């Protein structure tokens, strides 16, 4: 009874907020949890739940997993608006059930789950598949150290008794989840025979020491950051055998083409997002398809037909000018975007929009871990750089010390004002790349919405 009351409150507040056109997804779930702290167990029990967690690439991976289900004609619910804390997950399920708490239609759920939240909700969700993307330094001020974040996910994973794990085998932290727990695990990663050894710089060494015995790891190669074929000379911990193995990739401005093998079968796939990190995300989704035993060619085809996630990398055209938005929230995200820019070579302007609200991460010192120095290699292709947001001046300081020219705001200006100015300076045919932090992304998006009247994202 308490459960149904909580459910109704949740549904009612959602309805009220929508009627008022308020885009919040936090409040309804929050109220429901107050009334019935265990509501999620009851809500999720009639669903086959597929969870994705990890520090980077959750949203894109969840989207690609959804595409895999689409390809199979399996209907599902998903918390795709990006609210990945318990309250957001509650709201998502509440919407997927009738007033009596039974699934309205779909009985599958693709759930993106925050790492700390996962430790708390894993047993309630009882997932059938758990995909873990990677562990990079992310919002250190929220969860402490990256090993602590790993422990949170591992705690959750240990409660997901029925789950098949799909793990990034190239990440020693991620792979340790499979090594430490009895669940069946499918590992994905990069094959060493044709892998390029390249990196945004070799300073991302947060996992350079063995998670098991703290000795210095050795790598046959790295793909980016600490991902690669690792082994520990002291204790023997090594990259597990890969079930989904990518052996070549090619990036272009708005797509990535890659070839991979699953056992004896070989496949090619082109996804409509670029960046090596997105190839990894796609492999997570391929591993997900493997876990559910789907037809491999169908899985590949459904990834090809999918589109990128909310704000992660989307392009809108304003007249003859393109504005491309990529959410970045930690140094590895930035380094990957920078690598991507170096690879695709195209004239562009870049606008950094950095806020330091809680959802962004209140500590911005990680700016100094980003290899902005590499942007210099863009040469004449880099037509201008701009900073805005609450910590825009701090970004400008960082870029100055990277030896780069940047336009910053001497008096505070809104993201919209700055973007308007940039658009005025741009010539036809030019591209503006906007790199917002989480809350700045909403400002960017609402600016773009006003410009082109974009659909609200839950329509």
């Amino acid at each position, binding site marked *: 009874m308490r459960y149904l009351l909580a459910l109704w409150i949740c549904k009612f507040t959602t309805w009220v907020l929508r009627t008022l056109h308020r885009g919040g997804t936090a409040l309804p779930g929050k109220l429901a949890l107050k009334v019935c702290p265990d509501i999620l167990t009851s809500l999720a029990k009639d669903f086959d739940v597929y969870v994705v967690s990890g520090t980077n690439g959750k949203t894109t991976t969840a989207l690609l997993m959804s595409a895999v289900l689409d390809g199979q004609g399996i209907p599902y619910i998903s918390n795709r608006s990006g609210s990945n804390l318990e309250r957001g997950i509650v709201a998502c399920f509440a919407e997927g059930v009738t007033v009596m708490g039974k699934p309205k239609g779909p009985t599958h759920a693709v759930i993106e789950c925050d790492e700390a939240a996962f430790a708390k909700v894993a047993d309630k969700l009882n997932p059938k598949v758990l995909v873990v993307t990677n562990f990079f*330094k992310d919002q*250190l*001020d929220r969860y*402490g*150290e*990256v*090993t602590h974040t790993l422990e949170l996910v591992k705690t959750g994973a240990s409660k997901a008794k029925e789950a098949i794990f799909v793990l990034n085998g190239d990440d020693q932290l991620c792979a340790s989840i499979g090594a430490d727990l009895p669940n069946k695990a499918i590992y994905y990663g990069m094959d060493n025979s044709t892998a390029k050894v390249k990196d945004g710089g070799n*300073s991302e*060494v*947060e996992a*350079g*020491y063995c998670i098991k015995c*703290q000795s*210095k790891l050795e790598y046959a190669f790295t793909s980016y950051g600490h991902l690669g074929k690792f082994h520990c000379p002291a204790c023997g911990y090594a990259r597990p055998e890969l079930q989904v193995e990518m052996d070549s990739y090619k990036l272009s401005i708005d797509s990535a083409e890659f070839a991979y093998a699953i056992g004896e079968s070989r496949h090619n796939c082109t996804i409509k997002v670029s960046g090596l990190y997105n190839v990894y995300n796609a492999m997570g989704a391929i591993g997900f398809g493997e876990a559910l035993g789907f037809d491999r060619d169908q899985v590949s085809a459904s990834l090809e037909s999918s589109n990128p996630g909310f704000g992660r990398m989307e392009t809108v055209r304003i007249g003859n000018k393109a504005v491309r938005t990529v959410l970045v929230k930690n140094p590895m995200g930035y380094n990957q975007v920078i690598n991507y820019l170096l690879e695709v070579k195209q004239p562009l302007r870049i606008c950094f929009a950095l806020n330091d609200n809680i959802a962004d991460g*209140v*500590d*911005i*010192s*990680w*700016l*100094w*871990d980003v290899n902005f120095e590499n942007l210099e290699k863009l040469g004449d292709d880099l037509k201008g750089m701009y900073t805005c947001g*609450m*910590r825009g*001046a*701090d970004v*400008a*300081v*960082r870029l*100055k*010390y990277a030896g780069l020219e940047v336009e*910053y705001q*001497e008096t*505070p200006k809104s993201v919209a004002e700055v973007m308007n100015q940039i658009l005025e300076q741009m010539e036809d045919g030019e591209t503006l790349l906007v790199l917002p932090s989480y809350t700045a992304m909403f400002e960017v998006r609402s600016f773009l919405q006003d410009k082109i009247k974009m659909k609200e994202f839950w329509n």
Partner: protein
Amino acid sequence: MDGLSIRICHLYPDLLNTYGDKGNVTALLKRCQWRNIEAEVVPVSLGDAFDPDQYDIVCIGGGQERERATVCQDMIDKADSIKASLAQGKVWLCISSGMQIMGKYYVNSQGEKIQGLGAVDFWTEASKNKIQGDVVAECNLVGGVEDQDTYVVGFESHSGRTYLGEGVEPLAKVLVGQGNNGTDGTEGAVVGNIFCSYLHGSLLPKNYRLTDLLISRALVGKYGQEVADQAMANTPDFAVEELARKGCISRVLH
């Protein structure tokens, strides 16, 4: 100024780099170079030799618990050369875990007492609650013209509580934030040319006057006061640094 050079040692950059500590080293490097002082950064990590005569400035940053333990062990091997560097009055910047290691001892969460280098008279006790947030603190070592020129800004994130021994000066007095222990208003410690602080990561880029103070101290030690004064007389542009610092002060103080 031509003919001058500064060598900066970045100690354990692969282990103690949790909070953008590279920024401190970059700030020192750039502000030397902008003055035409030849400058170079040399990483020194586990098992590497540390030659005290080689480096005018030494930076050691903050790290995670398990990496700090590894570093402590290695520093014992390097203790003689580190002590020689300190005794020669070389400039040291020790942030967070790097600061704790410089003290007399550290009591960890299990109650074990871990010996530090004892370079500065302070000690640290673990606590369950982590201190986190933006800090504004007054540092009288950095001069200026306007009132708030002496304010340094930074971000603190530490669970250790550090207590200064008698007569040990803090680096700064906390105006907003918790500082060394959340009770006595002190932030960091400074003895001679050893600068310790909990303000991690980008302390120096956020506070160009402090960066310049460290460079000046290193030049005085190497070339004498007169040459140092000449080299420091011309201050590289600091407009955007000041904009960021003042932006932080106004958001934190009000």
